[in-house]
């Protein structure tokens, strides 16, 4: 069977109907991972442990205790620490690192046990490649080599959750976890023709997620459909006292509106009647490739055909989100990454004369060039004489950006725009010019700064490469975003297209 072409929702039905077992699904995907090494989507697999989990899932089902996701395989981004698989964040700094505990997300989705009664019973296939410490937009910054885009192996898969996206696009995993600090779920999902959602800040516990920029980092799913993302997000999101920023009211069924009409005035033919979709003028101005603009506008027209009304809105500080992000995220990173000092764990240099030299040589050898660049930027903006002008000024503009979204949401229920200025680019095209790479993050950064939920939904192709349409919602409106995306996917088939290599 071609189980790798199925959505998670379909696999769940097949498991329930006993058309397939968890063990069979796990072997199918492990075989595909082995045969699909060319994508470089995985950093570690442990087939024995995967099969052990699958057997547990089959027993849970035989005992009549299976939940919606019991026995469904998934890949975890290597930023989540896991027992049994190496946890490296794609850095030489953490080469071969074995975590003594599971991240909250891994625990929530994993096998239930006495210590973990809420575990969803999903089967871990392995750890997905990524940009080192989640810093990058192309996955070229992995210490273990770049990830290839299954739609065109000469192109990047996006980043930083590029391995997660490529694994799903190439049919090596039915769904994967990712993290999004400035677009790292939405952008690779867009470049690989997938659906991905970054929830509101605080929805998913960051416990055990190797930190990049703590006030921006948020975990979410990358899958084939909005329905699958709703299933996974519902299982991932919960209040976790171990993360002080985890919201007390997290945890809900994010799929509860999927098949509902937007409001009481809507008809079956026009289920989105009453929905107001805001198109920010700044998201459709210079710098956006024609092919992307055309497909995203067609996506908006499709929502209109389903009953929505389109309104023009403004997010005047869109351009400034780039410098604001590239001050705040490196500042937080320079602080977070100071823990990697070569003392208790991680890379330590072989020879050194004193403590200072040990720190410097260990860090210099362990970190890649983009990580070093961001640590340098962070140290500069936090240093004496620059803190007010750079760091505090960026935090003040961050408040303006958050306020601008509220002004826009007075006129609309959700905001629609592109995820990226263009489709996936060729390897090496931007890797020597960090500023060019940063500029391509323009449409995704502001939602992280404001802490809003946002998703990427496939909406077309240009140069035979997929295009993503971004939907941004107000705080805690994930279920509504997924509803609109699901209704769109009932009327279109962009999300069902798969690269020819996979079929």
């Amino acid at each position, binding site marked *: 069977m071609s189980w790798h072409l199925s959505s998670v929702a379909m696999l769940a039905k097949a498991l329930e109907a006993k058309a397939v077992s968890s063990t069979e699904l796990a072997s199918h995907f492990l075989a595909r991972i082995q045969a699909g090494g060319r994508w470089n989507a995985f950093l570690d697999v442990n087939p024995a442990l995967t099969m052990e989990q699958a057997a547990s899932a089959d027993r849970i089902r035989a005992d009549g205790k299976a939940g919606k996701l019991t026995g469904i395989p998934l890949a975890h981004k290597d930023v989540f620490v896991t027992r049994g698989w190496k946890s490296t964040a794609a850095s030489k700094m953490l080469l071969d690192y074995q975590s003594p505990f599971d991240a909250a997300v891994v625990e929530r989705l994993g096998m239930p046990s006495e210590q973990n009664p809420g575990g969803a019973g999903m089967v871990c296939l392995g750890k997905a490649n990524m940009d080192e410490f989640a810093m990058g937009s192309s996955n070229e910054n992995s210490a273990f080599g770049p990830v290839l885009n299954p739609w065109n192996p000469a192109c990047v898969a996006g980043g930083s959750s590029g391995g997660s996206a490529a694994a799903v696009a190439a049919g090596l995993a039915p769904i994967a976890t990712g993290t999004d600090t400035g677009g790292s779920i939405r952008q690779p999902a867009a470049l690989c023709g997938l659906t991905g959602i970054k929830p509101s800040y605080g929805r998913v516990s960051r416990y055990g997620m190797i930190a990049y920029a703590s006030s921006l980092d948020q975990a979410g799913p990358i899958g084939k459909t909005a329905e699958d993302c709703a299933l996974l997000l519902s299982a991932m999101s919960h209040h976790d006292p171990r993360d002080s920023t985890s919201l007390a009211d997290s945890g809900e069924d994010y799929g509860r509106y999927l098949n509902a009409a937007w409001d009481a005035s809507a008809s079956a033919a026009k289920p989105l009647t009453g929905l107001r979709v805001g198109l920010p003028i700044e998201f459709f101005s210079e710098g956006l490739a024609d092919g992307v603009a055309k497909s995203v506008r067609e996506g908006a027209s499709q929502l209109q055909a389903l009953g929505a009304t389109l309104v023009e809105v403004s997010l005047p500080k869109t351009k*400034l989100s780039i410098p604001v992000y*590239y001050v705040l995220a490196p500042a937080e990173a320079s602080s977070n990454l*100071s823990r990697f000092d070569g003392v208790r764990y991680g890379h330590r240099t072989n020879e050194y004369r004193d403590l200072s030299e040990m720190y410097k040589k260990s860090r210099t050898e362990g970190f890649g060039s983009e990580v070093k660049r961001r640590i340098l930027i962070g140290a500069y903006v936090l240093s004496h004489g620059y803190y007010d002008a750079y760091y505090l000024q960026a935090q003040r503009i961050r408040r303006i950006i958050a306020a601008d979204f509220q002004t826009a949401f007075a006129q609309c229920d959700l905001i629609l725009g592109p995820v990226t200025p263009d489709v996936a680019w060729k390897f090496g095209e931007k890797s020597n010019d960090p500023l060019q790479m940063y500029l391509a993050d323009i449409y995704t950064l502001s939602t992280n700064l404001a802490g809003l939920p946002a998703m990427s939904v496939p909406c077309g192709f240009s140069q035979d490469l997929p295009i993503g349409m971004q939907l941004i919602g107000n705080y805690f409106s994930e279920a509504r975003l997924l509803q609109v995306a699901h209704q769109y996917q009932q009327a279109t088939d962009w999300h069902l297209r798969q690269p020819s290599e996979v079929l």
Partner: protein
Amino acid sequence: MKLDDVQRIAHLSRLELSQAEAELVLPQLQAIFSLVEEMQAVDTSNFTPLAHPILFLRDLAQPLRPDHVTEPNNREQNMQSAPAQQNGYFLVPRVIE
């Protein structure tokens, strides 16, 4: 930003940069900071810094919990990443000189 600044922040970051590496990274940082300078044109006198996105929405109290032991003894798992061990302890270089 000048070459001296690069070496200064490299030291603050406990990173070593050769002269050639510093010369390579300087124009990259200069290009990034020319963009960062655009922030200075914004009048932010009426806005307080926002450190955490949910603080924009509502005040959050620092969560507290009762001070009792919640962690079990996981010595075996915890020792896995120890660079060296002796008598069941982590062995690390002397860090107080």
